[in-house]
């Protein structure tokens, strides 16, 4: 009884609503990312793309989803059944969990309270993202191993080693950013960029490395070696069918959405509206309108990144495995260390004024 009295029920309700909205939005966005991917592929290849289901084919993702649900669910005889079903679940779970620390907009003012549009403003936000993203390897690894298929296992190992290698460079670039921000909380990082220069201006090389690593983490095309359809028969999800396959494909698109959000947040000012003094605007037109505009602004930034992901996918061919590893270990990591050292020197110089 005592515990129930001390809990702030408003916080729980507000977080529950926020979580369901964000999960719903990320799933919806992932759905329409599949549609957008096919459309972008089509226009880049001088085709029309899906245009039969509804006007401009906008019901195509629904039709695809229905198809995936209707398909026969096959579990291979000699697979490890528990892990086989766990694999796609883990992939989906880790993809959805990352969105917890991303600040989607400024505070909204309702029911006499300031409600932050962020599920959890933990002060180790970036570390949390890293922890969850690296758990994404398990989805690939478990799926590939449980399939009891050599190709799937090979693909899973390739995917895991790729993700681990690129995570190093990603972490090193973030260290450089953290030296500038002095905080690991994503909300603080965004607030520092509000009406200020974005961190991409201070860290162009860091952003580039982070972008390349994000491609590798999402298993997107120049680095989609773990699902190489020409070499490994679709890699780790070869044995999957029906919605379990759908979960793997869906997790990739959710990952893409979330990593776009993270990139926009860390390097491109998050929910800051460019060319506009957000605080002044909020004072004149009300906080809620500002929050709505900021959320739309962040969403637009994410859309631009997602388009970029797709644009690269239909331009750049897949890397060979040795090229991938050379790029990761011999180019990106030294560059990231260099970036880190230079940033460290500059920050120190500003701090003490002289050497």
């Amino acid at each position, binding site marked *: 009884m005592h515990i129930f009295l001390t809990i702030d029920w408003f916080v729980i309700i507000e977080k529950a609503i926020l979580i369901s909205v964000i999960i719903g939005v990320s799933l919806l966005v992932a759905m329409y990312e599949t549609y957008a991917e096919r459309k972008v592929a089509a*226009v*880049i290849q*001088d*085709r*029309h793309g899906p*245009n039969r289901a509804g006007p401009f084919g906008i019901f195509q993702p629904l039709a695809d989803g229905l198809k995936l649900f209707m398909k026969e669910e096959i579990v291979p005889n000699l697979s490890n059944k528990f892990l086989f079903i766990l694999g796609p679940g883990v992939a989906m779970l880790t993809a959805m969990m990352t969105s917890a620390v991303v600040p989607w907009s400024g505070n909204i003012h309702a029911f006499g309270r300031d409600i932050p549009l962020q599920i959890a403003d933990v002060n180790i936000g970036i570390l949390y993202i890293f922890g969850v993203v690296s758990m994404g390897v398990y989805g690939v690894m478990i799926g590939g191993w449980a399939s009891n298929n050599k190709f799937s296992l090979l693909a899973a190992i390739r995917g895991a080693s790729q993700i681990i290698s690129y995570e190093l460079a990603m972490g090193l670039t973030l260290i450089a950013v953290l030296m500038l921000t002095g905080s690991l909380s994503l909300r603080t990082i965004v607030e520092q960029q509000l009406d200020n220069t974005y961190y991409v201006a201070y860290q162009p090389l860091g952003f580039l490395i982070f972008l390349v690593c994000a491609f590798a983490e999402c298993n997107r095309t120049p680095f989609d070696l773990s699902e190489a359809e020409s070499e490994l028969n679709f890699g780790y999800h070869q044995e999957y069918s029906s919605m379990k396959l759908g979960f793997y494909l869906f997790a990739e698109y959710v990952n893409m959405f979330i990593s776009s959000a993270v990139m926009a947040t860390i390097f491109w000012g998050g929910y800051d509206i460019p060319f506009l003094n957000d605080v002044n605007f909020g004072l004149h037109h009300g906080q809620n309108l500002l929050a709505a505009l900021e959320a739309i602004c962040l969403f637009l930034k994410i859309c631009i990144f997602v388009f970029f992901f797709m644009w690269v996918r*239909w331009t750049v061919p897949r890397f060979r495995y040795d090229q991938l590893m050379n790029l990761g270990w011999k180019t990106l990591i030294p560059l990231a260390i260099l970036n880190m050292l230079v940033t460290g020197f500059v920050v120190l110089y500003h701090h003490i004024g002289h050497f």
Partner: protein
Amino acid sequence: MQALTSKAKQVERKPMTFWEKLYIPAIAKGMYITFGHIFKKKPTISYPEQTRPFSPVFRGVQVLNRDEEGRERCTACGLCAVACPAEAITMEAAERLPGEENLYREEKYAVKYEINMLRCIFCGLCEEACPKDAVYLSETMVPSNYNRKTFIYGKQELLIPNPLTDPEAFAKAKGNRPEKNS
């Protein structure tokens, strides 16, 4: 080894220059090209809504023609069946009874007229052989089907709609083919 032609080109295998090793310029160039393709005109034709015009000499599925008064022209002479290299045409003749003058133009008519569309090679020789302009090849194609029997077209499928009772369907079946002078 002696090259057979002068067209053989030695493949260059020199190591990449620094500029090439950067990858980024080459990728940027490629992405510029693919971005340009977004605004290119698409050559696709959305088929059921849009159709490509046929050539004036296109030979599609046969049509049994009627004259201006809606009477069947065919007299079941059998010249088309003789001319047919694929032996796709069969027919049965019958005599016109009194009172059927508004249905058949001549005293003799085809009571059964069948073309096997699986045998037909759409050469157009039946059209050339016909002395009465009764059979000609239209601009439509044979639709696909799961059942072989449905490809044996009888009079029901072949006969053109009556121009007096259903002029629209007649015009549609007739198509834009230029009239033959004979």
